[in-house]
């Protein structure tokens, strides 16, 4: 794990400070602080319904925050003008929990959608890119001409990942990427994320419940409970933490099966 631990002083590409987010009179995130460093894979865990997706959406500017600050690449999203914002949006890729492929476009067109919008290149090049991304996420090339409604749940996940990688982003947001994949597929997926992260210097913010992913690819883990990050660090830190939820999570029977030796 040492090789993958990022330098302590690495630059933070995402900086969240004292974030408060709520809906109506319910406060979901309450004074949350989090840093994500360049080139690391951060695993983000927490109870179901605890606000992991909400945090992701807040960082992406899809949910309004009540107070606090969220900086991506050192810039506060709210202060950017339209052009700067669009430049920023080219630098991140997002895999939504439900895939969110455009249902009226084929998989290939889905992947080419951001390319067509932002880059000027020939159709042949765009086809090359689409097929390369499709192969990279482990799909067969005949998927390219299929509509999203003709794909299985796992294939949708992969196709959506291919689309989020279309512009070779610097930050990749993944909301439960390996749920719905078979264990071998999930393993490949983890492998792929690691490859991409190493070759492209990608920073990955990954919401996950998959203990295998946490164990094999995540450099660092942050845990969310009661609207705050209650612990962050390596698996070892998590396992030593006293919070009852972390105790249950990292010392449950499934966790023991994965972390065996350390547990």
């Amino acid at each position, binding site marked *: 794990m040492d090789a993958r631990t990022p330098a302590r002083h690495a630059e933070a590409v995402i900086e969240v400070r004292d974030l408060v987010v709520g809906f109506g009179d319910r406060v979901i995130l309450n004074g949350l602080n989090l840093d994500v460093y360049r080139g690391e894979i951060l695993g983000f865990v927490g109870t179901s319904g605890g606000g992991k997706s909400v945090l992701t959406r807040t960082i992406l500017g899809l949910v309004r925050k009540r107070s606090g600050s969220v900086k991506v690449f050192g810039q506060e999203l709210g202060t950017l003008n339209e052009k700067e914002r669009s430049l920023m949006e080219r630098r991140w890729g997002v895999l939504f929990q439900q895939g969110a492929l*455009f*249902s*009226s476009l*084929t998989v290939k067109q889905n992947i080419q959608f951001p390319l067509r919008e932002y*880059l*000027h*290149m*020939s159709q042949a*090049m765009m*086809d*090359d*890119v689409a*097929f*390369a*991304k*499709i*192969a*990279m996420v482990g799909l*067969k*090339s*005949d998927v*390219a*001409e299929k*509509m*999203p*409604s*003709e794909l299985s749940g796992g294939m949708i996940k992969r196709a959506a990942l291919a689309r989020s*990688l279309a*512009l*070779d982003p610097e930050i990749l947001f993944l909301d439960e990427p390996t749920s719905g994949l078979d264990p071998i597929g999930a393993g490949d997926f983890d492998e792929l994320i690691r*490859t991409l992260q*190493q*070759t*492209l210097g990608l920073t990955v913010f990954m919401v996950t419940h998959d203990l295998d992913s946490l164990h094999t690819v995540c450099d660092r883990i942050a845990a969310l409970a009661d609207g705050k990050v209650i612990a962050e660090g390596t698996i070892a830190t998590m396992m030593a933490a006293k919070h009852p939820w972390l105790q249950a999570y990292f010392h449950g029977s499934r966790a023991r099966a994965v972390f065996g030796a350390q547990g």
Partner: protein
Amino acid sequence: MISVRSQDGGLVVAGRGAWTAHFAGALEQEVDAALAAHARPATVEIDLAGVERMDTFGALLLERLRRTWQTSGVVPRVTGLAPKYAELVEEISRTGQEPPPPKRRTEELLERIGHTMVDVGKDAMALLNFVGATVAATWRMILRPKSFRFTSMVNQLDQVGFRAVPIIMLITFLIGAILAQQGLFYFRRFGAEIYVVDLVGVLVLRELGVLIVAIMIAGRSGSAYTAELGAMCMQEEVDALSVMGFDPVEVLVVPRILALIIALPLLTFIGSMSAIFGGLLAAWSYGGITPDVFIERLKYAIDLDQFEVGMYKAPFMAFVIGIVACLEGLRVGGSAESLGRHTTAAVVKAIFLVIVMDGLFAMFFASIDL
């Protein structure tokens, strides 16, 4: 971004700068130019020492250089590739080996006409089939009245009936007024202004009232039904109902159609009254026909038959609108586009069938002298 030079009888392609997404368009052109200019060099060396950054776009173009020359029998030597990109380049050269799948075909004109014809036939069959399923579901419900979804129907009644009242009243009022105003204009030439009352009364009660209300409801509630059921289909909610042992027709369709069958006659009544009121006001202000004269003449001009003819038609039109809208909703496929297409189809077909039915009713009532 690349420079090509000859060296010792071979070719050296030197890359420099950023081979990234942002510059991919320009780089592609240079790569293609190099490939076109040197189709069959003796040896090739691709020197990447000058490339500062590379992403999948750059790696793909490198792969294109390599593959094109390889197929013409020259194996290029790649040098100077920064080690951190080695894995990426390897990954990319692994991809794109499979042949691309055939494109989705678009249909030719003649083919489309043929398919449309077949579809019209299939549509008619599906409609009949669905009418059967609905009637059967209703029959089952009559046998087991407990299973009737009363709450759901009341909710629908509120949506399609009660909430439609203001807009129906407004539109029929305006149409009644316009009818009277235009009628006055012509009857005045013959000094027969009073006949405008007959015109408005008969036309509205017999034909226009029910027709306009039905068309409005087809647009307003028919589209809502299709969109609701369509969205449920897309989210697999309808499938969830079936696997839990419910009949989607019974749960979703019957309450909606019953609600329409109850609401449309009521709305027709309200709309007709509103249209006559509009006619009355227009006749008063344009033709000086006072309300008491108008009502006196109305009593004389129309009888209960006229009113009944209009009201009889309403439930049948409601049934057709409901059936078409629900059927289209349940046929929605997985995409947002399909939802839009079926909603449009539902409204167009419902309005078409309403007008066709009105014609059939006219023939029917004429033949029984009503």
